[in-house]
């Protein structure tokens, strides 16, 4: 996989979240800073599935202590986290 930019990761995550958790929603209503965990859009089971997707899509390992709202509440934080993880692992 070629190294995706932060913007590419954001778009991929937006599509994934729309498909999985907000079927039928317009992409324009899901902003980079829309709260997802703290608003109840993604619940704990949803988070597990999303992390599973992220781990296989971006070939990174997400540790339990990293799975909190600081990294997984908003698309922009997820993209930064994924990007940093990939760079650290490169």
């Amino acid at each position, binding site marked *: 996989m070629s190294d995706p930019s932060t913007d590419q990761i954001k778009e991929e995550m937006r599509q994934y979240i729309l498909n999985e*958790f*907000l*079927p*039928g*929603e*317009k992409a324009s*209503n*899901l902003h980079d800073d*829309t709260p997802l965990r703290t*608003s*109840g*859009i993604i*619940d*704990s*089971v949803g988070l*597990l599935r999303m992390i*599973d997707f992220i781990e296989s899509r971006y070939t990174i390992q997400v540790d*339990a202590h990293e*799975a909190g709202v600081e990294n997984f509440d908003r698309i922009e934080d997820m993209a930064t986290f994924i990007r940093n993880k990939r760079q650290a692992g490169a």
Partner: protein
Amino acid sequence: MSERPSSAANLCEYLETSAQRFGDRIAVVDPDGSSVTYRQLNDRADRVSGFLLARGLQPGDRVGLVQPKSVTGVCAIFGILKARCAYVPVDSSAPAARIRSILGNCQVRAVFASPGCAEVAVSIETAKAVVLTGTSTGQRSSGLPPSAVSWEKVLEHEPSRALPASRHRDDVAYILYTSGSTGIPKGVTLTHENALSFVDWCTSVFNPDEHDRFSSHAPFHFDLSILDLYLSLKHGSTLYLISEELGKNPGTMAAFIASNQLTVWYSTPSILSLLAEFGNLKQYDYSHLRLVLFAGEVFPVKHLRNITAHWPSPVYFNLYGPTETNVCTFARIPTPIPPDRTQPYPIGWPCSHCAALVVDDAKVPVPTGEEGLLYISGPSVFKGYWGQTGDNPAFFERDGQRWYNTGDVVKEDPADGFIYVGRRDRMVKRRGYRIELGDIESALYRHQQISEAAVVAIPDADAGVKIHAYVATVRDSPPSIVDLKVFCSKALPAYMSPDAFLFRDSLPRTSTDKVDYQKLQKDSAASQSQTK
């Protein structure tokens, strides 16, 4: 059916007997790792009881418990029971309006609440006392009335030992609120007798002893907790409380079960599925685990096969029963699961303290093998819903027995017992929780831009069911799906939030002007199969 006398006259007696026999053994381990012995637990419960009696609580009064699971909560439960009061456990993470509606419905006279729930607790007008748990000594949030006291103050109280002779098996022990079709939760009111008859049946089948280490995964407001709490403490075993946070994290939960060498596990199938899928179970030793019990929903065979492959040695049981009857039928699941099996396992035969009847709409028993409604009678069956007056239509009398309509459609297999077929009403199960779809509709109608709402559930191989909400809106600019999701997370418990929202100009109606649920159900099933 035999109504065998229970070994104890009251649930408190389980603890009191264990405190005498196993005083120095660990009774309960808190999610923070601290623990109490049987003697300590019994002593603290006596102090809680003394506090409640000093505050003027009377036998039969209700006491709310609104806090995350903890040793403090277990002490409070037994203290409440010792005072001959009934505990009302409520999900502390539920929306405040729902907590208030439950505590108001049964008019609690006291509340034990964590600091996060202090505000709602002190707003309950009937409560003479509010105990704040989880606060350090002397700490009190500003603005709270003098009725609020700290847990430490309660423990300084003189113990009170209620006279055993004054206890009655028919005293209400606890009230568990479940989703109600009109949007108001229903309080299933259960007596000591209801619980004792079930727990004593568990003793005869699961044969626990003081060397067992039980999981306590279900929160106290969920009926699965009755087995964990009372069976474990009856036998001098150790109960490991699993916090809500740990309970949702299969990776750390898998390590927790192994490192604490748990011997008995009890949860919904959803949790076992998560453990098998995400727990990375291969890296741990589960040789101590002897019993795996599950209840609350149908266990998809794919996931059951998965967990039994990871944990081959324990004995597996499927336990079935609505909150109103507690567990009333059970089936031992033979392992390994054959690779070609796709049908879910049966719910099995009635427990020895219950009797079952499968009847048609005229309440006439159906021939073996035919579908019918499952009715249950026996000492574990509840008396009624809190505050309900008049006859409960879910009951009928036959052969001098009182039979409760579970609402579940089953058929009898002569070899394996009852097979669960489904339901005819609008109640569904998700992650073991009961959901009345009408309850979700009531919440949606509170949204200012929604003029019509109808909710349907469709089967889903992975999730069990998916919940689809159809809405019509009052304005030209409808709320976004993000808005509706956020609205639901504030108005409803998380497990009730719809998976999808679908907009319609107006909802389809039948010729009698009722919402055409069959049409919506078909639309949803069609959209579901398209996305696969």
